[in-house]
């Protein structure tokens, strides 16, 4: 056993010497390999963590939102729908939501203006999200002016900011009184943006949704499940452009790796012959190639994964931010909670380490059975 270990270590010694002498080739391979693992793992970590976090956060979302549709588009919902919905069996409560968008030409950002039901706000005051405070460089006590529907300017004093920890959902929020909201947008008192419904028994949610759309045919109920599922798909990197980029990177890598790993040069074949002539067994020669493939691919894998972890969870995926931000001016500043799935890491391991190692071993298999006497002449 100790002699087996000593032998393997010696073979590893030789493998490393052999790798080191082809420094250029192997370092470039390592860099490309690490980069591919890094991109794949970053996308994987990011999407998985965002999905999990979104589903936890959105647990608090309304069980059902009822929108009114007019000519196939969203339209404000009349408040008398409230009574009809409350009248449906199993509905505990139905409440109007007041929210809308405000485009701020000063910074070119879109805000979400909302009159909350469960949070009281003083007359003439607003509470703003951290993102707005950041892009407008305003704080508590400052005054924020809006262009109202009638062309007049309405000014509000900032009464506070939403907690920084909640930026992921509140960065662009402006909380305002109901009176202020209706006055700003000229929104009639008879209407609301939509209606949130809560039910007694979550199992009945679908039945109740069906009843609502039967009784109020011009409405569209959206249940919480769908909201959460929407975010599953938002962070489903297999569905986006990300996957196109990744596939391209992967394809380029496979071609590169195949060429580098499988092309046994005449020089390498000769070396295998020499090793066999001086008493190495075929299995020893294959062990060299196995170690070669495993060393390069394992270290690339480990390095790529660790870099990706740092990138996503310590730097909040700063490389992805441009893609996520897109053209938005306002972007939440948030740290991602590291939900990582060992299963996914395992899959990535098998997708990256195994194919490369195999690609290294296979061609050497044929070379390793050459007759040792071939090195006696040349």
């Amino acid at each position, binding site marked *: 056993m100790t002699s087996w270990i000593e032998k393997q270590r010696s073979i590893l010694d030789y493998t490393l010497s052999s790798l080191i002498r082809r420094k250029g080739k192997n370092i470039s391979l390592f860099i490309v390999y690490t980069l591919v693992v890094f991109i794949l793992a970053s996308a994987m970590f990011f999407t998985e963590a965002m999905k999990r976090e979104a589903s936890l956060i959105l647990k608090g979302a309304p069980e059902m939102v009822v929108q009114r549709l007019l000519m196939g588009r969203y339209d404000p919902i009349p408040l008398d729908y409230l009574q009809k919905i409350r009248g449906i069996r199993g509905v505990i409560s139905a409440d109007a939501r007041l929210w809308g968008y405000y485009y701020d030409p000063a910074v070119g950002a879109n805000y*979400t203006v909302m009159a909350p039901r469960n949070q009281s706000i003083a007359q003439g005051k607003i509470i703003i*999200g951290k*993102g707005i405070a950041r892009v407008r460089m305003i704080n508590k006590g400052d005054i924020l002016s809006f262009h109202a529907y009638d062309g007049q300017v309405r000014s509000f004093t900032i009464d506070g900011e939403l907690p920084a920890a909640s930026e992921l959902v509140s960065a662009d929020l402006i909380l305002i009184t109901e009176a202020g909201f209706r006055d700003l947008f000229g929104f009639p008192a008879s209407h609301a943006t939509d209606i949130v419904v809560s039910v007694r028994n979550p199992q009945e949610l679908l039945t109740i949704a069906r009843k609502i759309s039967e009784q109020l045919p011009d409405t569209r109920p959206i249940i919480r499940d769908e909201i959460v599922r929407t975010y599953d798909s938002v962070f489903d990197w297999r569905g986006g452009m990300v996957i196109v980029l990744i596939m391209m990177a992967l394809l380029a890598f496979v071609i590169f790796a195949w060429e580098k790993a499988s092309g046994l040069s005449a020089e390498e074949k000769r070396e295998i012959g020499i090793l066999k002539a001086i008493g190495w067994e075929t299995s020893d020669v294959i062990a060299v190639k196995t170690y070669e493939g495993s060393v390069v691919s394992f270290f690339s894998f480990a390095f790529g994964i660790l870099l990706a972890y740092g990138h996503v969870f310590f730097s909040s995926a700063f490389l992805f931010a441009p893609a996520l931000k*897109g053209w938005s001016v306002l972007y939440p500043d948030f740290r991602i909670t590291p939900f990582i799935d060992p299963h996914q890491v395992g899959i990535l391991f098998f997708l990256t380490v195994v194919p490369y190692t195999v690609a290294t071993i296979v061609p050497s298999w044929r070379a390793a059975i050459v007759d040792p006497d071939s090195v006696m002449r040349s």
Partner: protein
Amino acid sequence: MPTSPGRSSKPLISHRSRKMTGKARLTVRKSSLCLVIFGTALLMLGAMFFHATYQRQADTPLIGRVAGVVKTLALTDLCLFTEARYTRHPSQADLFSAFQDHPMALEHFPAGSIVGPPATLRKLHDKLD
């Protein structure tokens, strides 16, 4: 059996009989170095999982607080893409917002390459619409 030539200390080639330099004799074995790096890498991967678990636990109350904000304000969406209303509130968007005409249609805004169509479009729940 023949005796070993190596055991004789007298050099065979006298005209350039220089002994090995200390440096060459003292180099660390490459495999040792490799195994140390391998062990470090494994440790760091382990530390990564450990850190993730630890951070997740530390973040649980924070996530709870955010969920609380979502609940009190009756919010429905994450504030990730503020460029258009159907990217700001994908779950609430119209059926006919830009890239939602067809679930695979690419979209004007960069976020459209990341944001998929809302759940309602991908899988309609039974007999709602």
